[in-house]
């Protein structure tokens, strides 16, 4: 609309491209060894862990309310900002006690992501629950835009980049084949712990049982006395909390946060969820790691292909196997 706005967006979008700052875009001849090596696999797994945490929220929400929650990437952004804020708030109280501080920061990111997700559900998605599906989708786009622009409009946050502090001192270990920092270990471990926790929750707990019931058949679940809205609320809370943690991990790993940081990882995590079969929890994790690896390899080959590969994967999956790798086959009801 206005040329001025284009300029602002130009500066932002140029760097919005996900984790572009860590990618190695090589020009000229590329040897296969520089693409498929241990270092790239480590990087791919690290990116994949972050995607997996975001993708889980997408897939859980989709499984239960059949809504592509466009704003999910923004819960990730909120998690990153919440942990940033919490770090500076509590930094001076816990000098030297890295463990406690790390725990507080983690809790802040989960809480912020989860609460905002729950609020978004309550205020924007719940009133449209039984309206045509597209109206919820458009509302989700609206919520996503609102969160992004509201955060960049707030004077204390602003549209510019902030460098994320080193919450835990960075240590790098050279293993010969690849250099691994403790951040890689933390990213992969935190993601793994949360994923195991989620699996136990869904398989063993009463809430998990209710979630599975609602995702299978909402009406029957209601007849069995399950408070559907409560289950949906908890689903948003858990999904948002996972996205918040992903934001914290991404902030630590690629130490730069900004209000539009959620757009690209959000989209890619969504594609990962579709690749794995949307609605399936193991599928989301599998899809996310495939995406992370594919993207890292492709970026090492060529930055253009790296940017486009996610969408190429999406289109291929939807054309060849729309239900995804581990998705259940569904038939259209007539």
């Amino acid at each position, binding site marked *: *609309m*206005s*040329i*001025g*706005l*284009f300029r*602002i*967006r*130009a500066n932002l*979008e*140029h760097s919005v491209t996900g984790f572009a700052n860590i990618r190695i875009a090589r020009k000229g001849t590329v040897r296969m060894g520089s693409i498929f090596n241990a270092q790239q696999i480590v990087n791919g797994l690290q990116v994949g862990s972050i995607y997996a945490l975001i993708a889980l929220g997408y897939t859980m929400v989709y499984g239960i309310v059949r*809504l*592509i929650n466009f704003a999910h990437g923004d819960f990730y952004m909120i998690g990153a900002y919440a942990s940033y804020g919490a770090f500076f708030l509590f930094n001076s109280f816990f000098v030297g006690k890295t463990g406690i501080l790390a725990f507080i920061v983690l809790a802040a990111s989960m809480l912020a992501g989860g609460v905002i997700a729950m609020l978004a559900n309550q205020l*924007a998605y719940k*009133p*449209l629950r039984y*309206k*045509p*599906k*597209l*109206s*919820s*989708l*458009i*509302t989700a*786009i*609206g*919520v*996503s*835009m*609102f969160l992004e*622009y*509201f955060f*960049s*409009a707030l*004077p204390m946050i602003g*549209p510019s980049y902030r460098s994320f502090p080193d919450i835990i001192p960075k240590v790098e270990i050279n293993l010969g084949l690849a250099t691994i920092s403790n951040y890689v270990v933390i990213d992969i471990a935190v993601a793994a712990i949360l994923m195991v926790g989620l699996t136990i929750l869904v398989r063993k707990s009463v809430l998990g049982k209710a979630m599975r019931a609602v995702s299978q058949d909402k009406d029957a679940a209601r007849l069995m006395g399950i408070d559907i809205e409560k289950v949906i609320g908890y689903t948003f809370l858990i999904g948002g909390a996972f996205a918040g943690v992903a934001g914290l991990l991404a902030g630590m790993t690629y130490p730069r946060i900004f209000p539009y940081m959620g*757009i690209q990882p959000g*989209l890619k995590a*969504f*594609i990962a969820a*579709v690749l794995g079969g949307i609605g399936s929890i193991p599928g989301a994790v599998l899809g996310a790691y495939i995406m992370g690896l594919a993207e890292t390899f492709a970026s090492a080959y060529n*930055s*253009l292909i790296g*940017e*486009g590969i*996610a*969408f*190429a994967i*999406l*289109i291929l999956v*939807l*054309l060849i196997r*729309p239900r995804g790798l581990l998705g259940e086959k569904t038939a*259209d009801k*007539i």
Partner: protein
Amino acid sequence: MAKFKLPKFLIAAVLFYAVIELLYTFELMNGYILHIINQSLIYVILAVSLNLINGITGQFSLGHMGFAGVGAYVSGTLTTLIFKINPSAPGGMLIFVLSIIAGGIAAAFIGFLIGFPSLRLKGDYLAIVTLGFGEIIRTIFNNIDYVGGPRGLLGIPKFSNFTIIFIATFLTIIIIRNLIQSSHGRAMLSIRENELASELVGIDTTKYKVLAFSIGAFFAGIAGGLFAHLLQLAHPTQFGFIKSVEVLIMIYAGGVGSITGSMIAAFALTFLSEGLRLGIRFIADTTGLPIGGEWRMVIYSLLLIFIMLFRTEGLMGTKESRLIKIKEAD
């Protein structure tokens, strides 16, 4: 037999054109307002053509500005880099018009290609694919050095003027209106209402979905070309996701399936957008508060949410103004 009410709309259009042109000639309206009117008219083309895909055929597309981008870059490349014409050159106007049409055709071809996955996809999946397509287009423009890469295609001659844009908008509305109210348009409407049922009564849903995408993309390409020759630049970010959402807000605010609604909303929102921009700058200047242009988009996104929550069918619903409507024969 449908009885055409074309003259009435024609009269209204000519009146509109004459009033604007007179106001401008007698300097009762400055170039800035004319510029916004030009932009509004281009947004009318975009909104009406998106309405054909989203509103009439019911195929949710989130990459409409991607088509506009194809049109802008193709026509901009033709006029700026290949023919190197300028508005004063003899025959320049002809080449310009042909370039714009070429841009439209290129966009239509891409729309045709996008139409195919839509045969297998519905609702949210289609939305994501079209979104992905828009992003791919943007990425491609961002990476082709010939058309400027991330700097954008600069130095495009300023060919778009009020007359050209007005004629293009008028033709778009007439063509889409006539299409919607023909048997082809009825077939598209039936796909929106119930795809399975329309297939059962013998409508070639595949053909009509692809047709809707191609025609919608064609006009989006034209609008993109006009935009590039109005702003004198084509930049990858002009055609990103956020811009597509702006057009989407227009059709949902105006009423999905109503050309009149799209027209009103395109004008209202373009003016609102400029008004907000000026208002925000004014407030920032007078009070010294650190508020930026982001608030404009905050208001936009809230508008979208509130429309969906409280008036899902939009301003006009599916109603049309009497100027647009073709009266059905009894």
